[in-house]
């Protein structure tokens, strides 16, 4: 019996809308996420991207790695620009200056541009109900400027502005639950994805593009440089984050929760922490505390999914 899942990658489109020659670090899973997302968006799309790693690596001035129209905007207003582009196109089509056709508008930002700096613009765009997608590439810190903490940095992670030392053990606050905040806006589609599951990521972005109204995809993208792991392990750690429920994969379709990856027996969080330089200082007590919180959050999420199925 052939395992057909193994051959699933070959079903993805071959066309690359995010080209080679971008300057991302070796083994950057965020560049991989952008690549898969672009495949899903297709050629008829416009991207507005906030400052961040992907903006820096994809467009050093004389060159660009994008094959689709792409606008670089300031840190805080990727969602505002994307919603403006959507409204502008709608007006032009209404006045007959452009032929009526489906153009996908995507806003993209890192975790800083989404959870910290861009939050109010994003919240506004989602509330106004523009027909757009917002994709957050979450690498859990401001990696582009040299690994500073953001509100998406998990508890205990050592970054340059939350360093681990004799007194403090890294980041002291918990990761902001961005997908929940977006789901609370009551938008038609919210999903979490990870570039270690490319088919799942592709399907989710495709679904988000087809949904009428705002959609939000939160994509965990492992950063080998900032997480202090070997470049070849980026995919493995993405998978471990999902299997240990440090980053559960789920969708919220019209308020209905649905787990897209569920395992009856989760791996212990130590499997995920082991080998990551940013967690190397953690004491067994701290790990136990994190494990307790992750299990509790996951049970909460599971309960939401079960309530829907009843």
């Amino acid at each position: 019996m052939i395992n057909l899942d193994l051959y699933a990658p070959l079903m993805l489109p071959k066309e690359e809308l995010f080209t080679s020659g971008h300057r991302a670090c070796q083994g950057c899973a965020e560049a991989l996420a952008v690549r898969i997302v672009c495949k899903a968006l297709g050629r008829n799309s416009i991207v507005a991207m906030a400052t961040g790693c992907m903006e820096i690596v994809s467009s050093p001035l004389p060159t660009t790695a994008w094959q689709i129209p792409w606008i670089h905007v300031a840190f805080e207003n990727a969602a505002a620009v994307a919603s403006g582009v959507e409204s502008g196109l709608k007006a032009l089509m209404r006045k007959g200056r452009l032929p009526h056709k489906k153009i996908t508008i995507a806003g993209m930002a890192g975790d800083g541009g989404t959870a910290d700096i861009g939050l109010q613009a994003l919240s506004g765009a989602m509330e106004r109900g523009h027909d757009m997608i917002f994709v957050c590439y979450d690498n859990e810190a401001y990696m582009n400027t040299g690994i500073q903490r953001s509100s998406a940095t998990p508890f205990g992670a050592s970054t340059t502005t939350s360093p681990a030392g004799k007194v403090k053990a890294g980041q002291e606050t918990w990761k902001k639950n961005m997908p929940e905040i977006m789901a609370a806006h009551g938008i038609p589609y919210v999903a979490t994805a990870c570039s270690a599951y490319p088919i799942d990521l592709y399907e989710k972005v495709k679904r988000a593009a087809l949904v009428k109204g705002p959609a939000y995809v939160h994509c965990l993208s492992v950063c080998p440089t900032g997480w202090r792991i070997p470049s070849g392990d980026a995919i493995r750690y993405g998978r471990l984050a999902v299997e240990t429920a440090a980053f559960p994969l789920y969708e919220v379709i019209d308020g209905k929760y649905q787990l897209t990856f569920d395992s009856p027996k989760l791996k212990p969080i130590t499997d995920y922490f082991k080998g990551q330089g940013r967690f190397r200082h953690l004491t067994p007590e701290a790990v136990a505390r994190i494990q307790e919180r992750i299990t509790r959050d996951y049970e909460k999420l599971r309960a939401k999914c079960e309530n829907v199925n009843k």
Partner: protein
Amino acid sequence: MTKPADQFKWQELTVGFVIPEPGTAREYHTGDWRSTHPVWDEKKCIKCGRCWVFCPDMAVFQKADQYFTMNPDYCKGCSICSRECPTEAITMLEGK
């Protein structure tokens, strides 16, 4: 190749720094960064495409005979393909 940014005169720049041509990053060869390179063992390869789908640099491509190989112009040598290969058909060797 287009000139580096510091060799541009201001008169040559487009209004709003628009880059009119798409995908010009291809002219910059990131393969220079590589210190290890992947080698495919075609006896073990089952042509599943996992190396292709997981390459963050779009440097793996399918040849005419359906086997995969890397493009030396862009491969940064991150070794994701060799770690993710289900049949361990890819090994990383030292040097370019």
